Structures are given as structure tokens and as C-alpha cells.
């Protein structure tokens, strides 16, 4: 792809300069218009297409380049079902669920295959089936018991070459983000990091764009039948979203943020085909020695799994404010989160941090207590089902994204919520009766 300026249409107004996040426009002299200049794309262009709809004169176009390879050999969706010490990561189940949605969009005979790599992990196949995997590819060897980049890259790449999946999805965990780029480089195919949305059909992408984005969809064709995956991810610290495609190479690969995709309803006793793939792996293939795996002594905060998160920020005033937040979380069955400001102030451990540099969360309810809502924080929790902002400042950015805004002193409001929490049902009934 490339960006081209149609000189005859360009008025030299420079509107595109403002739309470009990369400072990639400049003027060049041109005799054909009043201003005597037209816009020109320079080397800084990253082909983000932001400018396409910015031009009021239709003078910017996207030029397709490159030929299409024959990709029809590649079939089915693989999910790297990451396990640690014989326990599946939650994101693996989310990806199986998402894989289903995508498989349906590709074709009726596209299967979702969970790829299990490790040693003595036969028991995990059942769980993959229960959450919707059509097939399990089992890759086991004593040398694969502990994750190593070298070992896993080798066996998965070999399996990909042999079985040719169309799409491979990985969780964007510390392991997934270590492994996937290495495999993609070895397969010489594309990889998109940290995706928060995947689509196959252009029509479903348009639906998503209409509902959740500012994207001008007039340039998209809902009748388009192409089945390449459209991978949407945040860039520029969440200030910009980009949808990435991988048109000419297979498999198409993405790492997907944990906590973003939906698990399917668990079906106990579900079964499917188990394919045992015998890996070719030797000790000499592995160049690192994992001497020890240490769980940190600090409590494990599973922000990604929480249904309710009670998060505190600078507005708490000092570290002791987290006592109230903890009490709040205990009452509502939630987990304690925090803004970066609170972490930087040393009030709470970094493992609690929600946001672009911390954990991305998507709970049912996110209580933002004394968090003003810096863009980096919003990037990590904006997709929560319901956001409740409790803050003294009625104009802070958190109030803009919140579904329920409480302007007031959190030290007075939260104790009341704690006190009233168990009466919610009755309060609701009473309120409905009053209305009636």
C-alpha cells in the first residue's frame, strides 16, 4: 500500500497536515492551483491512512501494491493454548472462544484447534474441548516441560510448516510476546501485537467500526467477501487505533490482550479430535538454561479475571487510602487496582496498576476512586462494562468516560456504598415500586 496525492485535486490547503500523526506531509510548488502548491508525502509516512478521510477534496488516495499469493493451502484457526505448570492460562480459553467467532466468519468447515505444548499435559485437552475447541494438537516432550523460546519456537514452527494453519492466535502474555515474534520471523509471516479486536468479514468490521470507533466507514465495502483477518490494536499509547492486515503471507498471526475476548460457556464432557504431534527436539536446540522459576512473594493480583475492580488514585491523598479501597473491594468481592500516580507515589505495588503500562482490565464494574483519568489509565480500563467515577472534580477526564458519576468526597461516599451494598436488591425494588 502507499499514499498518493492526486495533484489535480489538491488545493494545497494543508488540512492533511493536521490529520497526520507522523508529520509526513509537506508542500511542493505546483502551477495548477491558486496557492501554487500541492501537498506531498515524505519519508516519515507510516501508511496509517489517517489522512484518507481528512482531505475535503478527495485528493488523497490509497494505492494497492504487490501481488496476491496463493494462500488456499492454509486452513483452520490455531490457538496457542498456553499452560504453565500444567495449568491453562485464562487467555487460552478466551482465544478459543474468539477463534470460534472468527471460524464462523471464515467458513463452516473452519476448525478451532488448541495447540498444547509441554510435558505430561494430556489432562488439559478436556478443558480445551469444554471451552469449545474442535481439535487439540498435543505436542509433548520432556524438553518442553519448561517454556523456552528456542524449544517452543522450534516445535510450533515445525508443526505450522506441516499442518499449515490459516490463523495462529497467542495470548499477549510475557510468554506469548516472547514466542510469537520468533515464530513469525522463522515462518517469514506477519504478526500483529496486542490486538484488542479481531474481525474476518468486512461487514462485521463495519459493525464494530460503527459502534465503537470514529472511523469513516464510507471507504469500506460491506459486500467485500475477503476472509483475511483484520486485527485492531492500540498504538501511540492508546491515542490511536490501527487495524492491521496480513494479505500475502500465511499463517496470519496475532497476539491478543488477555481479558479482552469472551470465553464460551463451559460444556462439561465435550470432546473432539486429539492430534498427537511428535516433536523433533534435542537438548542442543535449546540455548538457555532456566535455573529457577520464582513466584514473587507478593500477593497475586488477578486484575484480568476480576468482575469488579475498586481502583484508587492520587485523589486518595496518601497510602492509607488503600485501606478503605481494600475494605471496599472485600465487601463487593472485587480486586484492588490503582492508577499509575498511586504507584509512582509508592502507595501501592506496581502489580495493581491498571493502564497502558500496567494491566488492561475489563471488569463488569470498575470503580475509579480519586482517579482523574489520565489517557494512559483510560487506555487500560475504558472497555469495562460499567465505570463508576468517584471524585471531587466534576470535570476530570474520568467523568467523561464514566457511566455513573459521583461528585463528592470518596472518604464519605465509599463507606456508605459499603454499608448499603447488601441492600441493593431491596433498594431497587423500592425504587421500581415508587416509579410504578
Amino acid at each position, binding site marked *: 500500500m502507499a499514499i498518493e496525492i492526486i495533484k489535480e485535486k489538491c488545493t494545497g490547503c494543508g488540512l492533511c497536515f493536521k490529520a497526520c500523526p507522523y508529520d509526513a506531509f509537506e508542500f511542493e510548488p505546483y502551477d495548477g492551483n491558486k496557492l501554487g502548491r500541492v501537498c506531498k508525502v515524505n519519508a516519515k509516512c507510516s501508511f496509517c491512512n489517517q489522512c484518507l478521510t481528512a482531505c475535503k477534496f478527495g485528493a488523497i488516495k490509497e494505492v494497492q501494491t504487490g501481488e496476491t499469493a496463493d494462500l488456499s493451502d492454509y486452513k483452520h484457526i490455531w490457538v496457542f493454548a498456553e499452560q504453565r505448570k500444567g495449568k491453562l492460562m485464562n487467555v487460552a480459553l478466551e482465544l478459543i472462544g474468539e477463534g470460534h467467532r472468527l471460524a464462523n466468519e471464515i467458513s463452516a468447515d473452519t476448525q478451532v484447534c488448541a495447540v498444547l505444548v509441554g510435558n505430561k499435559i494430556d489432562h488439559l485437552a478436556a478443558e480445551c474441548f469444554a471451552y469449545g475447541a474442535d481439535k487439540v494438537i498435543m505436542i509433548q516432550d520432556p524438553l518442553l516441560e519448561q517454556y523456552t523460546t528456542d524449544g517452543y519456537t522450534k516445535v510450533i514452527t515445525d508443526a505450522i510448516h506441516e499442518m499449515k494453519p490459516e490463523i495462529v492466535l497467542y495470548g499477549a502474555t510475557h510468554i506469548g510476546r516472547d514466542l510469537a515474534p520468533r515464530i513469525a520471523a522463522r515462518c517469514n509471516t506477519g504478526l500483529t501485537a496486542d490486538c484488542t479486536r479481531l474481525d474476518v468479514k468486512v461487514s462485521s468490521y463495519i459493525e464494530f467500526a460503527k459502534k465503537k470507533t470514529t472511523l469513516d466507514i464510507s471507504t469500506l465495502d460491506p459486500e467485500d467477501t475477503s476472509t483475511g483477518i483484520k486485527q485492531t490494536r492500540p498504538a*501511540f499509547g492508546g491515542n490511536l487505533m490501527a487495524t492491521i492486515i496480513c494479505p500475502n503471507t500465511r499463517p496470519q498471526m496475532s497476539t491478543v490482550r488477555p481479558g479482552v475476548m469472551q470465553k464460551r460457556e463451559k460444556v462439561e464432557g465435550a470432546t473432539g479430535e486429539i492430534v498427537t504431534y511428535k516433536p523433533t527436539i534435542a537438548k542442543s536446540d535449546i540455548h538457555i538454561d532456566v535455573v529457577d522459576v*520464582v513466584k514473587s512473594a507478593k500477593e497475586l493480583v488477578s486484575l484480568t479475571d476480576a468482575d469488579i475492580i475498586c481502583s484508587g488514585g492520587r485523589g486518595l491523598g496518601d497510602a492509607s487510602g488503600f485501606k478503605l479501597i481494600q475494605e471496599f473491594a472485600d465487601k463487593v468481592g472485587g480486586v484492588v487496582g490503582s492508577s499509575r500516580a498511586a504507584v509512582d507515589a509508592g502507595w501501592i505495588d506496581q502489580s495493581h496498576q491498571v493502564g497502558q503500562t500496567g494491566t488492561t482490565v475489563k471488569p463488569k464494574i470498575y470503580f475509579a476512586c480519586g482517579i482523574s483519568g489520565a489517557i494512559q489509565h483510560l487506555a487500560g480500563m475504558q472497555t469495562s462494562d460499567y465505570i463508576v467515577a468517584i471524585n471531587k472534580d*466534576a470535570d476530570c477526564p474520568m467523568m467523561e468516560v464514566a457511566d*455513573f458519576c459521583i461528585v463528592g468526597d470518596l472518604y464519605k461516599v465509599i463507606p456508605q456504598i459499603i454499608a448499603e451494598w447488601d441492600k441493593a436488591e431491596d433498594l431497587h425494588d423500592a425504587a421500581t415500586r415508587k416509579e410504578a
Partner: protein
Amino acid sequence: MAFKIIVCAKQVPDTNVIKINPKTGTLIREGVPSILNHDDANALEEALKIKDQYPDTHITVITMGPPQANDLLFECIAMGADDGILVSDRAVGGSDTWATSNTLEAAVRKVGDFDLLWCGRQAIDGDTAQVGPQLAEKLGVPQVTYVQEFELDKDMKTITVKRQMEDGYELIKLQTPCMLTAIKELNSPRYMYMSGIFADKTMKTWNAKDIEVDLNTVGLEASPTNVFRSFTPAPKGKGIVITGDTEKEIADNLLVNLKEKQVI
């Protein structure tokens, strides 16, 4: 023989400063400074710490970008790196991570043998964390990403690192040459030295021809991934302001609303 370290670094817009124009929905880029990517500064700092301990260490910084990226080399050398190379060519513009790693591979091979290759975990503009591992793959060296602690044995060969995990760390031993990616927990990057700012600097600019890279493997055309569309996230509609005469009333009203939405 001198211990040789190559650090790959990227000049990025400071995303903390970027704001969205609420009216047009576009990024406000004006006044956004270009900075040395944070994780890359941690990578350089770790290399400099080795040089502090073993002065016979030679540190070369490689970056890829437009001519302005020379400023990044200036900064890195002022912090203590020995020399810097900017790979700059229209032909490598628009590269995705795969094509970028091909370019960097060619540049690293031209620089020559190394003991350590340091990269930052990820750049704050793209946040992909892919270039380091992909470069390691092309160069055929082992990797450890998310390095939070690093130790070089006196034999100048054996490395012990702690690799950060979500819930702890892995203790890993490996041998040079290898590629490591740094995270902010690894160290606190130093500032530029005044004497470094004023000293003569060895900075080279190489184009695609200089690094003898296959032009079919770099740039936009060769990149397996392309940007299909990009957009700014939609601002949500205004929420409901919960009011009440007392804090208790506010709490009650909130709970009624949450119950209404069937989330509690």
C-alpha cells in the same frame, strides 16, 4: 579483546504528551517532542554499566529512522556510548517489524561480531515488542526478553538474568552472544554528561546499499503486514450523574442504578 555491545534504539514521539483534538478526533502532534524510547534507554544504561565496570567495552548504538534520528545517536553518545549508526533510507520506510528486523540484521552484520545485543522491550509508539526477538531470530542468537536483572560473569561469557513474568520471574543462564530486551525495572538510565555533549562524536549514516540488504525484504512493499485503517477511539457518551442530599442517598441511588443494569 574488547567486549562488544550493540544497542538498538528508537526515536519515538513522547506519547505521554500526545492529546486528541476533541473536535476533529485527530492527534495533536504539535509540540510533541521526539525522545529516546524509554525501554531502549534502559537497554543502553545496562550496556553503560558494563562499560563502567569493564572500560574496555565498546558500545555501538544502531537506530533506524529519518535523518533527525541522528539526535538520538547524539544523546546516546553523550550518555557514554562509543559510536552510533543511523540507518536511513526511503527504501526501508513503512517497514513493519519483520522488515525492520531484516534491515537491522543487515546493519548489525555490517557492524560485525558482538557479545551482547541489547534492545528495549518495546517502543512506546507501536508497543509491539517484536523487533528484538525477530532480530535475534534473523541473527540466529538466543534471546531473553523482559530482563529485570542482569549479571555478566567474570569469564565475560556467561550471563545470568532474571526474566520478568506476570507473577514472578525466571532465573535464566545463557552464553554470549545473545539478544536481551530491557524493561524499566532493570535500572534507572543516566543523563547525558556535559563533557559527552561537547565531545566529538562518531556518528555514521548508512543507506540500504551500505548495509547490503536485499531490497525485496525491506520497506513497505516487503512487509507482510499493512495498516488497513486507523482511527481514534470513540469517546463514550456522557454518563449519568448520581446525586443525593446525603452520601447515603448517593450510595443508594448508585446501587439502584447498578441493579437496574443487572451488573450486581
